[in-house]
């Protein structure tokens, strides 16, 4: 692990108790802590305020319990995602939320951890069907900013006992507690996959087609649109020639052929439809999941906009002057956008467009100067801001856990 700017090695607790000691000491003297797994997503959120001490949670690792018939897995928060995935794959199961690998996009290296995935909260294309991290995380253990080890949830998927603090950890960027252990509901992975690639549609038509597909009984598990310029960057040879609207089906082999046929009929489109088989599907969806098409050039700013699906193309149309590269996922509801970073990544225009449509925009990547100047996401206002600030201090009264990383004041 690399030393920080002051030449100090990261602290590396291997037990929740050791972590609690570190947090206790930090809270006592007001030293901010910069929590990380392997650091592959350190570029997300704003740099932690103050002269922070880095804490690596990598040492809290290992598969603790895995019960394929009870459909859950419990792992240390520092466990590499790849290890979790491999453990599950041995039994034909997987995480439902299809976690993206953002290393290419963020230009980082290292082994992404499961705790980092939870704290940052990003789900992949399967979000529209299998749910987000919030939907499959069923239990956590964490050390709060009070240096207290607490549990929420457990290892059963039906559990309404007490407040759902588990969900609160998802996407909280470690500002409420340092995760030490996480438990997920898991499911069998589809035995076979196929993807309909509908060719040559404009953004608006593609969105309408995705809505139609998702309003069918055929259980579409992914709906993404690659405009021509993005499709051209694909490494899946079949996709490179013109815009491609991807509709994914998964399930038992016997069902897939049937559903491909039914869905094709249901779409009633004159556009050309190519069908990608299992391998090509996997490759195409991994590219979408990891937002690889927007990885280069690295000095461009990358935004992640979440809106209702019908608003996706509308927001993009309003930003046309910025000449963005655009990739749509979640049926149009997730828009990845890259543009010339400039001074401020066009923050007010991008946020204005997203918010006018009832959505939000996150600045996922930008040169350091821009990142420091522009909030990661729009700061909350009014009564909500009060609730958020109070919640932060309920968990971390000294404000030592990743201060400023998610919200400017928390």
């Amino acid at each position, binding site marked *: 692990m690399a030393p920080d700017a002051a030449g100090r090695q990261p602290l590396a607790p291997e037990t929740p108790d050791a972590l609690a000691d570190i947090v206790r000491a930090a809270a006592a003297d007001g030293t901010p802590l910069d929590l990380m797994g392997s650091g592959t997503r350190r570029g997300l959120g704003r740099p932690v305020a103050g002269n922070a001490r880095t804490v690596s949670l990598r040492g809290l690792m290992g598969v603790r319990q895995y019960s394929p018939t009870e459909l859950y897995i419990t792992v240390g928060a520092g466990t590499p995602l790849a290890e979790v995935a491999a453990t599950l794959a041995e039994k034909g199961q997987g995480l439902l939320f299809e976690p993206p690998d953002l290393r290419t996009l963020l230009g980082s290296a290292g082994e992404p951890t499961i705790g980092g995935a939870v704290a940052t909260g990003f789900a992949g294309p399967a979000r529209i069907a299998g749910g987000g991290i919030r*939907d499959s995380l069923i239990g956590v253990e964490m050390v709060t900013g009070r240096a207290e080890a607490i549990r929420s949830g457990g290892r059963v998927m039906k559990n309404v006992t007490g407040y759902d603090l588990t969900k*609160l950890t998802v996407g909280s960027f470690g500002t409420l507690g340092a995760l030490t252990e996480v438990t997920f509901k898991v499911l069998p992975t589809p035995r076979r996959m196929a993807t309909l690639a509908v060719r040559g549609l404009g953004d608006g038509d593609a969105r309408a087609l995705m809505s139609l597909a998702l309003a069918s009984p055929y259980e579409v598990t992914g709906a993404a649109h690659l405009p021509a310029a993005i499709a051209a960057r694909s490494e899946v040879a079949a996709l490179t020639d013109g815009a491609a609207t991807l509709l994914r089906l998964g399930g038992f082999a016997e069902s897939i052929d049937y559903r491909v046929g039914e869905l094709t009929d249901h779409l009633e489109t004159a556009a050309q439809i190519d069908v990608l088989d299992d391998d090509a599907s996997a490759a195409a969806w991994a590219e979408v999941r990891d937002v690889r098409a927007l990885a280069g050039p690295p000095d461009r700013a990358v935004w992640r906009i979440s809106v209702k699906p019908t608003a996706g193309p509308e927001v993009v149309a309003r930003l046309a002057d910025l000449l963005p590269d655009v990739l749509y996922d979640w049926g149009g509801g997730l828009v990845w956008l890259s543009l010339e970073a400039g001074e401020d990544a066009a923050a007010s225009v991008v946020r204005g467009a997203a918010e006018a449509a009832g959505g939000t925009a996150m600045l996922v990547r930008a040169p350091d100067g821009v990142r420091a100047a522009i909030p990661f996401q729009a700061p909350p206002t009014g009564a909500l801001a009060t609730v*958020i600030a109070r919640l932060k201090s309920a968990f971390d009264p000294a404000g030592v856990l990743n201060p400023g990383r998610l919200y400017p004041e928390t």
Partner: protein
Amino acid sequence: MQMPEPNAAVLARRAQIAADLRSLLPAPDMVIAAEDELRAYETDGLSAYRQMPMIVVLPETTQQVSAIMRYCHMNGIRSVARGAGTSLAGGALPLADSVVIGISKMTRVVDVDFANRTATVQPGVTNMAITTAVQHEGFFFAPDPSSQIACTIAGNVAMNSGGAHCLKYGVTSNNLLGLEVVLPDGEVVRLGGPNLDGGGYDLMGLFTGSEGTLGIVTEITVRILHSPEGARPILMGFDSNEAAGACVDAIISSGIIPVALEFMDKPAIHAAEAYVHAGYPLDVEALLIVEVEGSDEEVDRLLGWIKEIAQRHNPSYLRISTSEAESQIIWKGRKSAFGAVGRISPDYYCMDGTIPTGQLPGVLKRIGEICDGYGFEVANIFHAGDGNLHPLIMYDANKAGDLEKAENCGADILKLCVDVGGCLTGEHGVGVEKRDLMTYQFTETELEQQRRVKDVFDPAWLLNPHKIFPLSARVGRLGADAAPAAAAE
């Protein structure tokens, strides 16, 4: 049942408070203060407990709810939100000095958006009414509590209710997009939105399942799904709970995740059959209802596979539903099972723990022994796919001491659920019913952190303050009662 000491000063101002509330609302009949009319609000689905509220208000808009909450906040008056009053945990049980905020007039479907697959509704819309509003386009709202004809979406949000089909579709929380909430001080906030995963703290996730203690939900945007082409169950009977449990494991290990996987034991089967005549076999110890979805051909294939798996576990009964009518009656038997047990016993007490599914046979055996020890019969109905148990303890409230005995028996069962790695409540909530058991599942540190969350939203503990947490544990909190005293009937 211990209740917080009513605030005498508030009670003394009752007439004035009713008048003030009337001045905040457009019609005088939106405030109920007459004793005979208040009676309808004294209890919920946990009818062993009754407590008359001070006043009931029936607002129609978010602004009215906000005005009421602001008034209560400024005047130190406690309030309790109420949906349809079907809570089985006493979630809607009032306090003697409380204003009950009933949402029964807020029943408008505000917007249905098929292109974005959402419906936005007022809080008093029933669970079933959401599906009714969208089914003409082939859509449905997935969470399906057995009480769905009566219970409100606000109650579902407050309790994070589940249903028989949540193995595939998840519980309420997994099917929400956004909430409009009136905070205890009257401020109106929006949590979540029309979009997915907008970033920031998942306050919608925190609010869901918070049992009406953090705010009043006034508008809800839910996800709606397109219905599958078809769905049909298979019925499978076994000579032992062990065999049925092993069959459940085997089905899941095979990679098939049914949409529903329900279990009934012999007393439950007999009660349901006598009530609904669903055609359940009466000579089996355990019955599984396993449902799969898809086209006719897909359903046939999946049910065929499940049948093959089941046959390895020596079922004494196997029947695949062949028609919509047959499927409906099979489900009717299951969904009426609580009522059916109500017919064969003067009273029943419905428990709701969850266990890791592998513990099933052992836990059922222990539940039998525990109930035996108290001299009670028990019927077991549960969601076997996710381990959510509903033992129904049959007792007679007219027998002196029987209710208390039933409660102790239930507590022993719930402790057993925690002991084997599960939890106190899978879908009904803690309410007043299980609040004293919270210390069994959580450490004092953990409970205190949860109470700090309550402090964030409701620093004076004015909204539904007697739920979720043991009363004694609130000592010292601002506005909370130092000494619990009064007892509800």
